[in-house]
């Protein structure tokens, strides 16, 4: 597992107004593995995730300093093409949020924005994307149905397919299973294992067992600091920092 870094973060600080939400973060997220970020509510884990596709830009009064390198390019700074960045770095949210359009239109929405494509090219993308999330067999005859009629799990898969349709490098997942039942959660986790063959996945989760089950590396955050970062088996069996130990054994938070 000597994958190269997909993201290199150094000296990253972030403020919401006066609130220092991320403090001197330093981390390397390796390519084509699943990295989990865990920590109590308000520790900064979602903020860190949102730095990676510049979603925090939408928050008023946000300031950042430091470096976040993706393929040698620093994504912090005014000059960055944020739309281009978000094509490369897609995000899956807690509550699946398909557009109120057909299944087909949900998937071709992104590709249409980024390139002028013919119908057969779009058809091809729809099939590939739905196959990538193991939905093709289920939905191939229902592509014109509204995405809003799907089950929660199907909606979440569709949202992931919508991302893979624009061929990103990185998938960010913010509590992607927290609204799903255990069976659906298990199936999404299996999907994530499949997806990591092609994508770098970073997941924020409150569910420690989930982090332990699916991730290759884990970062523990507390009060805006990245306390510990390393191989998941190490973090969950012999963490180096007392605070990590207290959190994952339920003594804190």
């Amino acid at each position, binding site marked *: 597992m000597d994958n190269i870094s997909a993201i290199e973060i150094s000296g990253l600080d972030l403020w919401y107004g006066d609130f220092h939400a991320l403090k001197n973060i330093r981390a390397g997220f390796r390519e084509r593995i699943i990295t989990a970020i865990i920590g109590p509510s308000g520790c900064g884990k979602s903020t860190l995730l949102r730095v990676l596709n510049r979603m925090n830009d939408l928050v008023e009064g946000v300031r950042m300093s430091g470096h976040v390198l993706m393929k040698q390019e620093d994504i912090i700074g005014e000059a960055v093409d944020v739309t281009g960045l978000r094509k490369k770095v897609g995000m899956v949210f807690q509550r699946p949020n398909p557009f109120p359009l057909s299944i087909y239109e949900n998937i071709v929405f992104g590709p249409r924005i980024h390139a002028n494509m013919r119908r057969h090219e779009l058809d091809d993308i729809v099939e590939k994307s739905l196959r990538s999330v193991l939905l093709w067999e289920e939905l191939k005859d229902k592509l014109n149905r509204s995405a809003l009629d799907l089950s929660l799990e199907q909606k979440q898969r569709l949202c992931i397919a919508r991302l893979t349709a624009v061929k990103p490098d990185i998938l960010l997942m913010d509590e992607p299973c927290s609204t799903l039942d255990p069976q659906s959660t298990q199936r999404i986790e299996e999907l994530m294992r499949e997806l990591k063959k092609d994508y770098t996945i970073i997941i924020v989760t409150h569910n*420690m*067992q989930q982090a*332990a089950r699916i991730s290759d590396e884990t970062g523990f955050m507390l009060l805006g600091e990245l306390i510990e970062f390393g191989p998941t088996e190490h973090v*969950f*069996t*012999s*963490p180096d920092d007392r605070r*990590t*130990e207290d959190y*994952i*054994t*339920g*003594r*804190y938070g």
Partner: protein
Amino acid sequence: MERFFDEELKNLHKDILKMAVMAQEAIFRSVEALQSRDRGEAQGVIDTDDKVDELELEIDERCIDLIARHQPMAGDLRFITTGMKINAELERIADLAVDISQRVLELADKPVLKPLIDIPKLSVIAQDMVRDAIDSFIEKDVDLAKKTVFSDQEADNLRNLVQDELINDYMAKDPSSAPRAVPLLLIARHLERICDHATNIAEDVIYMVKGKVIKHHSGELS
């Protein structure tokens, strides 16, 4: 923050200590039986072993139950998995005390072959090692655990000494001594195996405390 889970871990700890006391008592009584050629005492060790086996199963079930219900992590996980292993080592130690007792019964109605010198020394080392291993578990004392691991060499040397003496000075010279020499040889072997189990316990304790596996790499101990 005190957790409900902590109470259950404390109970598990108590049961492992109970198991340790039973195993230590079994060794002590079997060694006493050997030295005093006491059949009753030897039989007592054999009869008590069922209780040790019962407690072993109980502890095992409890550990599995704790893992299933609490999905422990980090130090909790290391404590429970180490507890399971120590439990198994203690059960084996008690079995070896039974083996010694059976040899004592075999020897009891035969004339004494020789005064016992090195076997009692080996039995002291074995009892000390088991005590130290258990204490290192109770106190989470890595230094004491390391000391236990190092003591194993002494036990091996002493076992070899006993073996050489019994083979060369007795069995080779007078084959008719074998029925009395072989049980003694086996007793030395049983005691040396007890030391190996104490070593395993000590290695498990080091993993439990430090999260570092030293098994099969005891060169990395220092």
